[in-house]
């Protein structure tokens, strides 16, 4: 390791607030030239926000950033890039229809008197790819034809087409299979040997062990430990640092297992979706809440969407009350009594420009219509009843649902299925974008739905939420259910351990 002592990047006391949420409440971070610095923390700990501050997508409210010994205030992502900080996000921002070289020089094309210098760009690209140890990728290939791993290399090549001193990699291994991860590590080692510093974000501990130099741990938006040696810090210590929360969420009292009825409502057998998950078995009884814990990308959302019929299962069955559902048919699932509160509330769950009442009744319209004509006063009255009982604020069922906050929008989605009278409710990240106060209300609502005999399945990235809300927990890793336990018999560190273990090599 040829790291020097004076840090390349020094971050002190970064605070970032969004309306109603304190995303970061004091982050410290030192990164030295030529090191791989790992950022570790649970979902919601503030890693993504921190990356966006380093790449100048967000401007911090408080705190200082010292870059190469001088105080730095980057006004725009472009300024950060020009200063030598490049970021590669999980979602690669490449143009599929352009060649590798065109992507690498997108936005700063090589040209003379307006004509693009394609030969020069291809040559430079070839050099950068060689530097990354991937000279087998041709600069003239279309990016859309490359594998995810190849596209990631192109993304890095784009970053390196500028002068880069610090490269931020946000879960770079999430899209890669095992062999490709090896490649990625080779590239990372190449770069650090040339003196480039890497900030590496990953949930997979064994990766951090392999290529990391030092670790900084974030929890609830603050740095709880920094500069830990990546190779030698015990796993138990790391998990201890990551768990436990300062903000205590109030979870409703869980019923005794005895109160859960015996009748199985939802039965999933050997469900599989090609290339995403396989062999998923699940049984949910009336009144029971089952939680799916796992990393983003482990296949949790896909499992819910496949049960719901929004994706067509490759094999396996889904039954409600003993009746098997047609594959890939949402309307059949809804008819059988399944409801879904999707992960992307705005793009998948709501008709944003439509009124609250319209959003509530959209799945039960037939109940409010005769010969196709809508009984508008009945619709309105029932919607008012529901929004009042769920305490949706501000009141008024004719207001556009766009004007509501995240928590209240989620209540509207829940009201829709409450009205429909579901047998099974699938909730994907039910509290994403919901502030602390509304969370407790939503937890209470979910519990009372279960108490009324609904079978509930909850997906959440927050382990604490799954444990606090569910009666039974399934841990999902890389498309498989790897563990099942009563929520009372498993704790946060055990779940985290299972979730992060990664594939044994």
């Amino acid at each position: 390791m040829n790291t020097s002592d004076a840090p390349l990047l020094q971050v002190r006391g970064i605070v970032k607030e969004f309306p109603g949420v304190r995303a970061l409440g004091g982050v410290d971070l030192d990164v030295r030239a030529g090191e791989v610095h790992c950022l570790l923390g649970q979902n919601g700990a503030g890693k993504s926000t921190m990356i966006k501050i380093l790449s100048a997508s967000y401007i911090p409210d408080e705190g200082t950033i010292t870059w190469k010994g001088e105080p730095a205030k980057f006004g725009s992502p472009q300024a950060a890039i020009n200063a030598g900080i490049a970021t590669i996000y999980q979602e690669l921002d490449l143009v599929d229809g352009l060649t590798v070289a065109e992507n690498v020089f997108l936005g700063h094309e090589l040209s003379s008197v307006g004509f693009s210098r394609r030969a020069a760009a291809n040559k430079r690209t070839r050099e950068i790819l060689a530097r990354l140890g991937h000279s087998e990728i041709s600069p003239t290939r279309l990016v859309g034809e490359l594998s995810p791993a190849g596209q990631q290399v192109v993304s890095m090549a784009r970053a390196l087409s500028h002068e880069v001193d610090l490269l931020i990699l946000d879960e770079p291994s999430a899209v890669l299979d095992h062999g490709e991860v090896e490649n990625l590590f080779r590239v990372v080692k190449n770069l650090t040997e040339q003196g480039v510093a890497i900030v590496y974000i990953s949930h997979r501990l064994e990766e951090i062990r392999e290529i990391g130099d030092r670790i900084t741990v974030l929890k609830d938006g603050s740095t709880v430990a920094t500069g830990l040696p990546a190779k030698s810090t015990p796993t138990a210590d790391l998990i201890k640092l990551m768990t436990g929360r300062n903000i205590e969420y109030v979870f409703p009292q869980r019923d005794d297992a005895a109160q859960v009825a015996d009748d199985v409502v939802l039965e999933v057998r050997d469900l599989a979706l090609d290339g995403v998950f396989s062999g998923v078995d699940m049984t949910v009884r009336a009144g029971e809440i089952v939680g799916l814990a796992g990393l983003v990308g482990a296949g949790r959302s896909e499992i819910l969407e496949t049960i719901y019929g929004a994706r067509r299962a490759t094999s396996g069955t889904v039954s409600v009350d003993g009746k098997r559902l047609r594959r890939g048919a949402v309307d059949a699932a809804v008819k059988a009594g399944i409801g879904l509160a999707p992960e992307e509330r705005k793009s998948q769950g709501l008709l944003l420009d439509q009124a609250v009442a319209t959003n509530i009744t959209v799945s039960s319209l037939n109940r409010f219509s005769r010969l196709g004509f809508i009984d508008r006063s009945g619709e309105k009255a029932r919607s008012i009843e529901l929004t009042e009982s769920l305490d949706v604020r501000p009141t008024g069922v004719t207001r556009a649902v766009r004007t509501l906050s995240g928590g209240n929008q989620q209540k509207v989605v829940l009201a829709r299925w409450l009205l429909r009278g579901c047998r099974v409710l699938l909730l994907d990240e039910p509290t994403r974008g919901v502030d602390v106060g509304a969370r407790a209300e939503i937890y209470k609502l979910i519990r009372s739905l279960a108490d009324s005999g609904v079978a509930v399945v909850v997906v959440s990235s927050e382990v604490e939420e799954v444990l606090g809300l569910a009666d039974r927990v399934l841990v999902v890793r890389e498309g498989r259910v790897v563990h099942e336990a009563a929520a009372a018999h498993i704790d946060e560190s055990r779940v985290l351990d299972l979730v992060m273990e990664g594939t044994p090599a």
Partner: protein
Amino acid sequence: MTDSTTERPDLGKTTDPHEGVDPVDVLPETGGTDSSQAMVAPAPGGSDFMTRLGDTGFFRIAGLAVVLLVIAIVGTVTAGDRFLDVNNFLTILKLSAVLGVVSVGMTFVIIGGGIDLSVGAVVALSSVWATTVATQDMARDSHWLLILLAAVAVGAVAGLINGVLIAYGKVVAFIATLAMLVGARALAENISDNRTQIVSDMPGFYDFFGAEPLGIPMTVWVFALVAVIGWVLLNRTTFGRRTFAVGGNPEAARLAGINVRRHTVLLYVLVGVCAGLAAVLLIARTTTGNSAHGELLELDAIAAVVIGGTLLAGGRGTITGTVLGVLIFTTLTNVFTLNNRPPSEQDLLKGAVIVAAVLLQQWLASRKRTT
């Protein structure tokens, strides 16, 4: 943060939360006791209507009315009594009927997130098919309603093909209906052998469409009826509600349990039926079926719908706006004809009116937001 700016890629419209809202469903955000009372116990008739006027939808409609008024004033100044005459107004309405009937159907398709470029060609095909049926020997003794049924059936089938291609074949609406545009007109030319098919001995047919109940031509009654049915269908039925949902957010509609594909097919069948009906009106007016009927009608219809405030990206729109858009177009044509101006000038101004109407609406809507 980029989130808020990338959220609504809808033709550069503003992001006022109220703007994208169906005026019928959404009351103004006055917040006070007034509106909450109205919500608990919707007042009957008049006052419900008054509350609705408070929405930006009203300003859109008002903007269109202003444009129409300006054109009327220009007409009065330049053509005087020849414009300001009951018979002239009836002529305008009579000429609006064909475009109007098609535009009502087009409004549904566009609110539902689609587009239909084939309506003009389908009008031609329907007119040729129906007149062929009418002139065949075996049909001589049959009832004149047959001509109507034939035209509407041809339109419905064309719409069905469009809809199935788009919803189940996943062909982009623009391309599927472009293919229908080319194909339907070619078929019409083939059937008619490029000749105008005159139907003169159809007494019942012309008696019916030649009638003028209450002094108003039957074709105008048909247009009015189609507009009213369209309004009710869009604003009072589950079909209309689902149309807004499918166009506003197809993914959310699907996940809410709406059969989006079936609904999409129905929308294209609906606009096809409207095109068939428009063909009947055209036959009644010209006594002919012709493969050249309805040329560029699709563009006029789309323009009328968009002028009327319907969002081309789907999810928002009104029948009232569309009807005003149609009237603006036809009145403009009428003023030019009365002044003996050439069609080229007329089209030039048509283009300007499209832009002006949309700009005016946006300006009025933004003024409403700031007050």
